[in-house]
């Protein structure tokens, strides 16, 4: 059964669909384009679920569905040992399914926000999906980097051509330059790793599973340099505290579907990269770097929440709190313990579901009322009762209420950080954990402020008269319903995910301890 599932089809079918949109059948037919993309995305999501069903965790190394893309039997750049090798281990698989899910949502809700250049828009989104899937499924450093860099192009166009504000072109340029800078640091890191691997072992390879750095011949300072160079790239992508200035403008400018993608899966790219490069490939260096990273994570968690609390723009509240939530992933990864890693991976799932929901809610509010200023909003619960119901559930989950998906990730992360077993640094980590726990209060006050100002309080008269401020439409209802169901199901049964990743996490901890 396993062989009949083609990972290449999974990755490249969105690209093919994107190209198909330029066929003459689709010219000028907006509804057809929209329905085709939605139908395709649904099928794609179903197909990606099949990969989970037939996943076999017993395979050596945990990597299923290995397959190489080659033209006429020749590897991509064989001279440098670079292959277009794709494969899924459990972490990649989870992220691939999440990506497919998020893109499905984004395509469904595109209906109301996109008013021009439909064909180009839908094909760019599908192209972006291929890039994301390829990034998560890549088994080769350079292939990973290729998709990392290729992401920039569709996002540049999505932001600059459909941006909401006048400065969207400048913002898109800023985004590209900032991220391109990060990706080139990553490139230097990858090249150094590749070169040193060749010098030490004389094997020319860039495959994640073939690169072994654990060797006294591989100088430690070199590992640390490579690790830091890679981290700079991921820190910009994540973003980590001092390097985040691009994210605010970008997400504020992006249309709602693009903002959903940017706030969810795009932030996981960096977390995934840290697992692949800094933990799996360079474990010795990570032991030295992790305590510093924990500090940055704590700053991320707290600082962004305080900033979010001070914001008057609801879009900015979402962006800042999502960056703070990404900080929790970072804290979990830097804690180097079983619980921390499990928490981080669970938080990736929770982050995606919750922020897809919150971005959607905020996007709908902004679209209907044509403002994102919190002072201009109020009492929307009277005019949009159904939206308020969903917003309430999502916000409560975000605060971290038990039995909902936002709880377990945080709990495990803080616990993992508190109980870390690294010598000399246990007090350090305990301080980080305690400080991060404070974030729960800040988060609650921040989210409740948002809820209160937007949905409760007195309703403005203009919103009662204005007929465009209508409650959610059917397709938005459907999407929000799915999100809420996911929030509750994964909140009630977190072990469904944690069991899946258990072997993977054990392996990570093992790699770090040896």
């Amino acid at each position, binding site marked *: 059964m396993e062989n009949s599932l083609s990972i290449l089809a999974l990755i490249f079918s969105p690209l093919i669909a994107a190209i198909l949109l330029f066929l003459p059948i689709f010219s000028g037919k907006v509804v057809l384009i929209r329905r085709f993309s939605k139908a395709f995305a649904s099928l794609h999501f179903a197909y990606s679920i099949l990969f989970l069903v037939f996943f076999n965790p017993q395979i050596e190394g945990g990597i299923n569905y290995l397959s190489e893309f080659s033209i006429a039997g*020749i590897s*991509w*750049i*064989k001279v440098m040992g670079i292959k277009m090798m794709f494969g899924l281990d459990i972490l990649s698989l989870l992220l691939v399914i999440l990506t497919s899910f998020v893109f499905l949502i984004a395509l469904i809700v595109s209906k109301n926000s996109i008013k021009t250049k439909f064909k180009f828009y839908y094909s760019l989104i599908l192209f972006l999906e291929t890039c994301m899937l390829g990034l998560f499924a890549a088994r080769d450093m350079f292939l990973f980097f290729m998709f990392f860099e290729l992401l920039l*192009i569709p996002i540049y166009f999505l932001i600059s051509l459909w941006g909401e504000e006048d400065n969207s*072109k400048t913002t898109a340029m800023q985004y590209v330059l900032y991220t*391109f800078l990060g990706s*080139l640091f990553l490139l230097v890191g990858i*090249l150094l790793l590749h070169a040193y691997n060749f010098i030490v072992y004389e094997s020319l390879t860039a495959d994640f599973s073939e690169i072994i750095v654990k060797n006294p011949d591989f100088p430690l300072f070199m590992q640390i340099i490579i690790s830091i160079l890679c981290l700079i790239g991921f820190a910009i992508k994540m973003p980590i505290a001092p390097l985040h200035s691009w994210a605010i403008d970008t997400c504020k400018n992006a249309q709602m579907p693009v903002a959903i993608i940017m706030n969810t899966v795009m932030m996981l790219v960096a977390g995934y990269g840290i697992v692949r490069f800094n933990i799996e490939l360079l474990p010795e260096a990570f032991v030295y770097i992790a305590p510093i990273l924990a500090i940055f994570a704590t700053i991320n968690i707290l600082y962004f929440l305080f900033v979010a609390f001070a914001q008057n723009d609801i879009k900015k509240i979402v962006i800042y709190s999502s960056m703070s939530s990404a900080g929790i992933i970072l804290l979990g990864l830097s804690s180097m313990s079983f619980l921390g890693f499990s928490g981080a991976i669970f938080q990736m799932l929770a982050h995606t579901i919750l922020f897809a929901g919150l971005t959607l809610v905020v996007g709908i509010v902004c679209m209907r009322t044509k403002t994102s200023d919190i002072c201009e909003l109020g009492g929307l619960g009277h005019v949009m009762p159904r939206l308020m119901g969903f917003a309430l559930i999502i916000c409560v989950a975000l605060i971290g209420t038990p039995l909902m998906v936002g709880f377990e990730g945080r709990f495990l992360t803080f616990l993992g950080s508190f109980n870390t077993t690294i010598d000399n640094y246990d007090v350090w980590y305990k301080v980080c954990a305690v400080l991060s726990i404070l974030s729960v209060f800040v988060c609650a006050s921040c989210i409740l402020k948002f809820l209160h100002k937007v949905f409760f309080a007195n309703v403005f008269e203009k919103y009662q008269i204005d007929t465009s401020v209508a409650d959610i439409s059917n397709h938005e209802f459907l999407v929000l319903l799915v999100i809420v169901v996911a929030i509750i199901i994964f909140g009630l049964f977190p072990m469904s995910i944690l069991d899946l990743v258990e072997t993977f996490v054990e392996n990570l901890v093992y790699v770090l301890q040896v």
Partner: protein
Amino acid sequence: MEFFSKINLILPEIAILLFIGIQLFLSFFCDASKYKVSKWISILGIFISAALCSKVQIEPICYAFNNSVISDSFTMFFKLFILISSFLLVFLTKRALAANRSNAFRFNALFLTNILGALVLVSANDFLTMFLALEIVSVSSTFMLAYDNGYFSKESALKFFVISLVATAIFLFGVAYLYGISNSFNFSEIYEFFDDKQPTLLYSMAVIMIVSGLSFKIGILPFSNWIVDIYEGSSTSILGILSIVPKLALFGILTRLLVFPLSYSYELTFVLVLIATLTAIWANLLAIRQRNIKKLLACCVSANSSYVLFSAALVSVYNLSTVLFYLISFVFMYIGVVAAIVILENSPFSNKLYEFKNFAYTNPIFTLCFAICILGLAGIPLTSGFVSKIYLLSAIVRSGLVFLPFLIIIVLTIVVSMYYYLNVIRYMFEKSDKVESAVVAHKTGSSIIILYFCTIITLILGLCPEKVIELCQLIAYNV
């Protein structure tokens, strides 16, 4: 008799020389209305010359004419490469020829002379032959620059000529020093002379002088200011020729010089790395403010030359192969961009970036190809630019940790370059109220075919570069 037995080594050059004669001869008899014939004669000449390359002996390495000419797979690679790229470039000269019909035959004669100089330059094995070829290239370049009507082309030709003379003087000074030390002009003899000796300061000075004299031609710092001025004055197709043909030949001879007679000086390596880094910074920063796409291209050529020089300075077989691959991928992307600009010149658009507005919506396929070539220059994946970028940078990384700071600077300049490349695309996607549905494809059939061809090559080299890289490694190994 030796002369006639070795004559096959210079058959391509002889063919070109013959066609220069034909062009000049016809220029006396054909009137201006037959200007199109001259282009086809050039094409025929280049084609025959390329065909004659198959007669040239390259295995084993072959020397001729008192060791002044060398022939191996490396020279053959560059000769064929020069001929192929000039074959593509001829098709772009249509507009330049039409603007000055009465001189079309003389222009084509100059163009062929430039190719002749480039071919001889690549196969030179002593400094005298090299100097001769260098001057053929410079002088023909000067007159090609002056070919266009108007004041600016004359001005740029004069500037080019004066700076070229200064650079040549410095080059000759270095050669004279080298001759003083080693008593020879021949590359192999100089290489053997220094084989068992400690290189002296005089040697280093001579070597640095030679390279800085040559750096004029590839647009590297000490003499690079001319490049932007000149690019503004002349028509695009001529600039395309001048930035490809002489540069390829120069890199061909420069890499050979760095491998053989100039390889004993560590100072030179560091000077070159430093110069390359400075040039990368200078060219990329200069390009940021350019709103004229031709000036932007000038900076782009300079910047890319500096990356290639960086890798070439750290001599090794692997680095040499990356240099060759980078040149291949760069030339095709660059010719694609030049073809696109030539097409733009034929339509109501000028060279100013802000006139490209609305362009993506009226000419989608053209914009796609143009964007692929531009993004290829920026090193975006799926194009050959990406592969050549990682291949070149991997060579620099392998050369040692000492160069890591320079590498980081180069990487930063690549980020800067992303800005101005993307700017071009940004303008094309911008909407403007001026509805001007200029469909550019008509009357420029050959240029648009060249653009498509270059785009396809760029994509193919980006997706399956393996065979080409293997070829480059084979050639680099045989040097």
